[in-house]
């Protein structure tokens, strides 16, 4: 193709000069605004600065992935907030992707019933504000029976309005034995699989090996089981209703957008590709997995990245249903210290960093796909 000429384009040197000038002017304007704003805010008693980060926070936090006591600093509290934001966003991202792909495929399914169902899902979830959906999820999860009447689903698994309680693995070196045995069994199963042993026989091998070695060790207690005492359960692993509601809300909502992206991606794959696949004798599922989805992925990635970012940002609705995410904890810190400006700046900075990391990861993945496509 012949290179077109753009008469309005400046020469390279001039363009640089112009851009530099605009940038400088912008920076000067920002600096002036910042100066004025901080003068005025100081006069109004809105303090700025970051000294408060080293002070004792003095409040309790419900969910803490790392150790926390109210005697710790605001900085640590905000760190816990950020961890909580990631703790709910990442599983929600995975769930939303899986669900979105499934619904997206169903949107283009041959069966009319599947298509209708998928369309209904997408339209209803996309058109109801996320906040309302969160309230519904939260209502459902907190309406479960109170702890004292909570049903035991499996040994050590309870479902109550205070959350889902699971056995939690204890930090114990003997887990290594179990893991080793399971790994060996996986290797063995793999070898047998190549000799065309049937899967139903092979799949139970690793878990059996783990249980067997546990038994051989004398069946030591490696789990902390939840037990009811006083008001609530103690021990075990707690998935709180706040976590569950926020995670499900984000995942099901984002899945409705991801589904559309997936459908669009699939539509963008030229029909010839499918026909060629069918001609090779591939089954429909194989066609989807081996031919269509890998090519659709290239079209899907950029909008998908945007969707992931908005899922993470949407997690800031957490405080509405009592999940201690970054914004919720920063709000408390701002309320106790009066550091509104610094607090909001920190929130923005944290979201910006997370977004940049996610965007970079997605861009890297995109580049790899493109390179592979070119090779």
């Amino acid at each position, binding site marked *: 193709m012949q290179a077109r000429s753009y008469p309005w384009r400046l020469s390279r040197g001039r363009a640089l000069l112009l851009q530099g000038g605009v940038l400088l002017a912008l920076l000067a304007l920002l600096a002036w605004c910042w100066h004025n704003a901080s003068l*005025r805010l100081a*006069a109004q008693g809105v303090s700025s600065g970051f000294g408060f980060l080293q002070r004792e926070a003095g409040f309790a936090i419900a969910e803490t992935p790392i150790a926390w006591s109210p005697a710790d600093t605001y900085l640590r509290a905000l760190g816990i907030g950020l961890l909580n934001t990631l703790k709910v966003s990442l599983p929600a991202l995975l769930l939303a992707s899986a669900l979105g792909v499934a619904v997206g495929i169903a949107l283009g399914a041959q069966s009319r019933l599947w298509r209708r169902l998928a369309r209904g899902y997408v339209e209803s979830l996309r058109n109801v504000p996320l906040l309302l959906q969160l309230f519904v999820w939260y209502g459902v999860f*907190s309406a479960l029976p109170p702890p004292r009447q909570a049903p035991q689903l499996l040994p050590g698994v309870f479902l109550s309005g205070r959350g889902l309680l699971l056995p939690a693995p204890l930090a114990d070196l003997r887990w290594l034995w179990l893991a080793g045995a399971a790994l060996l069994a996986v290797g063995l199963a793999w070898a047998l699989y190549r000799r065309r042993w049937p899967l139903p026989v092979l799949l139970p091998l690793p878990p059996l090996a783990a249980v067997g070695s546990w038994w051989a060790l004398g069946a030591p207690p490696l789990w902390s089981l939840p037990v009811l005492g006083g008001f609530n359960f103690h021990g075990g692993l707690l998935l709180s209703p706040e976590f569950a509601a926020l995670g499900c809300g984000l995942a099901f909502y984002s899945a409705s957008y991801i589904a559309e992206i997936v459908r669009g991606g699939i539509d963008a794959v030229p029909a010839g590709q499918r026909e060629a696949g069918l001609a090779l004798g591939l089954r429909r599922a194989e066609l989807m997995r081996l031919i269509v989805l890998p090519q659709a992925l290239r079209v899907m990635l950029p909008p998908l990245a945007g969707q992931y970012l908005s899922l993470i940002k949407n997690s800031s609705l957490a405080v509405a249903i009592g999940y201690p995410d970054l914004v919720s904890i920063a709000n408390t810190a701002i309320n*106790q210290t009066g550091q509104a400006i610094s607090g909001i700046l920190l929130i923005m900075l944290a979201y910006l960093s997370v977004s940049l990391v996610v965007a970079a990861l997605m861009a890297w993945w995109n580049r790899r796909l493109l390179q592979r496509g070119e090779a």
Partner: protein
Amino acid sequence: MSPLPFVLAAALGGFVAPALAGTTFDAVKQRGALRCGVNVSVPGFSSPDSQGHWQGLDVDVCRAVAAAVFGDAGKVEFVPLNAQQRFAALQSGEIDMLSRNTTWTLTRDAELKLDFGPVVFFDGQGFMVAKALGVSRAGQLDGASVCVQSGTSTEQSVSDWFRARGMSFRPVVMDNFDELNKAFFAGRCDVYTTDRSGLASIRMTMSGKPDDYLILPDMISKEPLAPAVRHGDQDWADVVRWSVMVLIEAEELGVTSANVAEKRDSADPALGRLLGRTPDLGQALGLPQDWAFQAIRQVGNYGEVYQRNLGPLGLDRGLNALWTQGGLLYAIPAR
């Protein structure tokens, strides 16, 4: 909703003018109405009734100031604010005064640069539980789930209290008052903590079944609730302070909305001075001669305001009785 819009408003304002121009008092007079920040909905303190008229003790405090300034208690624009927004709204100049069950603390006074008026309700933080829980004292609450609203002084007080006793609890923190109430009444928490007056209001008006809930006798903090204005605007602070103070003074002196005219024209010279037979007190504040008269006539004395608003919640006067009756209310003399 977050306080962000107010903070941004404050910051953006700064881009244009680096300092607040004029005093609040001038601005209020020019506008012809008082902009008063109140609670969104805590019946007894501040809530709109079925006709949309604002009712409550905090609301009447705003009205008393408007009556003193304009001679008309109706000249108030009520600005409903949640816990998070209230201080930013005051700092940004969005409201002229804050009258929203707000605790007077050193940090808020000095760090947020506010000036607090007379205490209009001596309160303390408490606990509410479902009777079915079988708890009668706060000491039995180890390990409980506790519902608290963010943006309040409550979050820290409850942490302090449990920490000081080596007890543990699990907070459920929400910024939205309605959602928090719903969560508590759905059984998400064992305990609800906030000011005991707030608990009384929530129990009475939002539980649906007040008899199923119990407010524990323990008081874990002091929460003196007072109106607030921006720091550094002394003339305006004086107006607010004295407009509220005369309501207490009136109760001490036996002046009510019904008999205020009669009292003004009585032989008592002190009463005559207070109620505006002579101009000096009003002049000193820059207010009309009948400022106190109008406040009392249109709003009532403190006792009337209390009965009207908090009587229906079954809150007895307790600490909020006059000092002559075993309470803490003591009007600084208006003379």
